[in-house]
């Protein structure tokens, strides 16, 4: 919870109007992200710890309820795919 996720060097998260979605760009690759993945990655700035990210998301999406499990699962998955690093 106190660990700080950041995008792996060489990865860029950005909005693509033509695809009407956020994407993750990396060397010669691109993944189109769904809404929840985008919402989480938008909070990953290399400074905020996981607990803050969850709190902010719960505040921004009050209808979504408790988000801890979902966020942690996504971050674990993203780390395994080497999109992010946890420090």
């Amino acid at each position, binding site marked *: 919870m106190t660990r700080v996720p950041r995008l792996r060097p060489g990865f860029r998260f950005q909005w693509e109007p033509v*695809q009407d979605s956020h*994407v993750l760009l990396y*060397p010669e690759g691109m993944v189109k992200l769904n809404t929840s993945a985008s919402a989480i990655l938008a909070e990953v700035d290399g400074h905020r710890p996981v607990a803050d990210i969850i709190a902010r998301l719960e505040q921004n999406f009050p209808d979504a309820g408790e988000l801890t499990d979902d966020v942690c699962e996504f971050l674990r998955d993203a780390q395994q795919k080497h999109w992010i690093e946890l420090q």
Partner: protein
Amino acid sequence: MNDVARPGHPSHTVGPPLWLLAELTYRCPLQCPYCSNPLDFADQSDELTTEEWVSVLRQGRAMGAAQLGFSGGEPLVRQDLPELIAEARHLGYYSNLITSGIGLTEQKVRAFREAGLDHIQVSFQASDPELNNAVAGSRKAFDQKLAMARAVKDAGYPMVLNFVIHRHNIHQMTDIISLCERLEADYVELATCQYYGWAFRNREGLMPSAAQLEQAEREVNDYRGQLAQSGSAMKLIFVTPDYYEIRPKACMNGWGSMFLTVAPDGTALPCHSARLLPIEFPNTRQMALKSIWYESPGFNHYRGDSWMPEPCRSCDEKGKDFGGCRCQAYLLTGNADNADPVCDKSPHHDRILAARRAADHATAGLEDLTYRNTRNSRLFFRS
């Protein structure tokens, strides 16, 4: 897949070109015998100007291209590269520089970073200097490449190392990967030659035998296992030659579906080797990129599947591989409409089997290959 645009009938189902490959020049100081540039590259010296490239980049980005590759030839010979990098960053591209490392300096590596370049891919020919330099046709290439790979890492880029694999270096897999590990590469591409351009010309002298390939696959898999155990993030991408498959690759993810290449003279192509096809392709000097992509006969030629002859026409896998690679069909059967002969349903599959047999018995050395240089290129042009 039946609702995809038919030739001459572009429809809204054609997606945007998400990848733009800018082949800035065919000029290159090296002479790799597997180079994918056209055999007659020496005759194509009329390169787009800086302004013309900037216009191509702007149009491509407006249409939705997000990944941009600067390649060649050797893109570093273009003096306006820093300007083009800065423009790419400004437009919001993720930009990739694909280089042999020859002509690169630490200062340039840093200056490109400041201009907004996202990634530099350095290509190697082998894991040791002797073989590397022999394949590249240059005496000091290897040391320069090592130095530049380190400079790329130091400047904070992700490090992607590319090795083109063929019968003369395929026995080096373990050495190559361990060299990459020492250099702390993030991604390693072990790309077996694709037989177009100069590589097709030299196929007999480049194609590994089945036994060589099996051995290499074992080595790569073993190494992959070790990396996973040690928690390494280094990713190994081993591209095996499709000549050893029985189903073709889904070339370019479908003709004109997401890849757009612009050649040094402005010719727009659905893939970088399509120039060899007997099809007329539009030029960015004469036509807007949008019309090129959505309306030109060249780009619509092989969209959809109504162009397919048998066996593809009635095949239930056509939505998966689109009948394979048009260039390969053309080079091996003389007709680009045919099924890619890699497919064992193709009546021309025997050409692939013959190439495999030849690879089992090939004896040609490096000195027997035709090196990619201006002199050899002019010979092709004349003949």
